[in-house]
């Protein structure tokens, strides 16, 4: 299959890229192309202009910033994130996630920003970034705005990003406790995934707060609020029990589609299994994140 013809531009600044893409929807930003080119080839979307952002410097940096947050440039490939020393030290679960996205060829060119902007419900990173309480920084013709990862994906294949807003960087607080990610899959995309991030007290014995997100079940990652409530101010050793108490009611609150990945009840059950296994992992890891 061949995409329909398009014009190709290679701006070297964010401002030029934003101007070049325009807001009519017929221009699109392009980086790895692992999602976009597939859709263009299948002719499920159409672009008159592709604006290649790979020549814009600074979009593929990973740093800990001055206020103890981790910044990941949107153009970072999954491969880069999986091997990055900052990510491996502070968020090893994200490094592992990126080492398992799709296959080695996709990881070599596919970017985390492209993954997020595509809004594919069966994707790995959005669930994890929502659990990490990430903010997505968009640069557009009217300046900069930040969107919480929870609010970024509106529905299947649809985000709140305007066509002429470029996702520049993803920012999240350096984790203050164990972070886990688990998924179940048949093919390359997750059928169900669960990400959890705990903030522990100073000696690592108590959970101050927890963020739990379940992805791929509905149109976007969803919080398990009852589980988060049950984990607040609970001893790490009692976390599994606390989750079990709240789990059934919390799972019933989820929006779950039946699709080719499985029926709704089956996938809801899988989410619970993945969460309890994650809890065991987090309890084991509990104190070890304290250095």
């Amino acid at each position, binding site marked *: 299959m061949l995409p329909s013809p*398009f014009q190709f531009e290679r701006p070297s600044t964010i401002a030029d890229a934003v101007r070049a893409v325009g807001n009519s929807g017929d221009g699109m930003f392009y980086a790895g*192309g692992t999602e976009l080119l597939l859709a263009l080839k299948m002719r499920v979307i159409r672009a008159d202009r592709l604006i290649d952002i790979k020549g814009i410097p600074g979009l593929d940096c990973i740093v800990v910033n001055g206020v103890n947050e981790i910044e990941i440039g949107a153009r970072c490939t999954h491969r880069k994130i999986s091997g990055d020393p900052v990510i491996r030290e502070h968020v090893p679960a994200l490094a592992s996630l990126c080492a398992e996205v799709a*296959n*080695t060829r996709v990881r070599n060119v596919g970017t985390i920003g492209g993954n997020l902007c595509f809004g594919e419900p069966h994707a790995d990173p959005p669930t994890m970034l929502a659990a990490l309480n990430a903010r997505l920084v968009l640069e557009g013709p009217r300046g900069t705005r930040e969107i919480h990862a929870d609010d970024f994906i509106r529905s299947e294949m649809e985000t709140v990003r305007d066509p002429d807003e470029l996702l520049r960087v993803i920012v999240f607080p350096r984790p203050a406790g164990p972070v886990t990610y688990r998924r179940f899959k048949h093919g390359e995309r997750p059928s169900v995934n669960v990400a959890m991030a705990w903030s522990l007290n100073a000696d690592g014995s108590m959970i101050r707060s927890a963020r739990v997100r379940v992805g791929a079940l509905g149109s976007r990652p969803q919080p398990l609020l009852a589980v988060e409530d049950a984990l607040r101010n609970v001893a790490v050793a009692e976390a599994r029990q606390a989750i079990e108490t709240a789990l059934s009611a919390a799972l019933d609150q989820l929006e779950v589609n039946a699709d080719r990945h499985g029926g709704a009840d089956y996938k809801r059950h899988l989410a619970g299994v993945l969460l309890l296994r994650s809890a065991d992992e987090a309890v084991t890891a509990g104190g070890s994140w304290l250095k």
Partner: protein
Amino acid sequence: MTQVLAISFSLNGKTIAVDVPAHMLLIDLIRDRLGLKGTKRSCDMEVCGACTVLLDGEPISSCTTLAVDVDRRDVTTIEGVTPPEGLSPIQQAFVLHGGLQCGFCTPGFIMAVTALLKTTPHPTEAEIRHYLDGNLCRCTGYTKIFEAVKSLAGWQDAA
């Protein structure tokens, strides 16, 4: 009107300059324009690995890469790792261990294994499986492919 861009890149060690439409895919440039038919199109959606080529030494899916994106870069295809006479050690190992039957997926596997052994000369079974997870073979059942790759551990050491 179709936009045409001039690109220049290294293909199997030889510099090539061509004009390509902006929307041309790398696999079509390699197979149809440049006549190298070893790279295979199969799933056409980055899942099967039959179209694998190396871009600056790393495996990519040529079916879902724009030709303009290899400008000033280094592309290696199966023809680039095959000696003028006989077979490369990796190809020979696939033959010795029965790591192929119909052979359609084999160029993609050879390219992926080439990249794997370059960075990981002594891969574990788990590393081999993880790296080749995205290359599909419908003949061998994979066991013989894994045996072929395991037999190659450290073959570059003596070289």
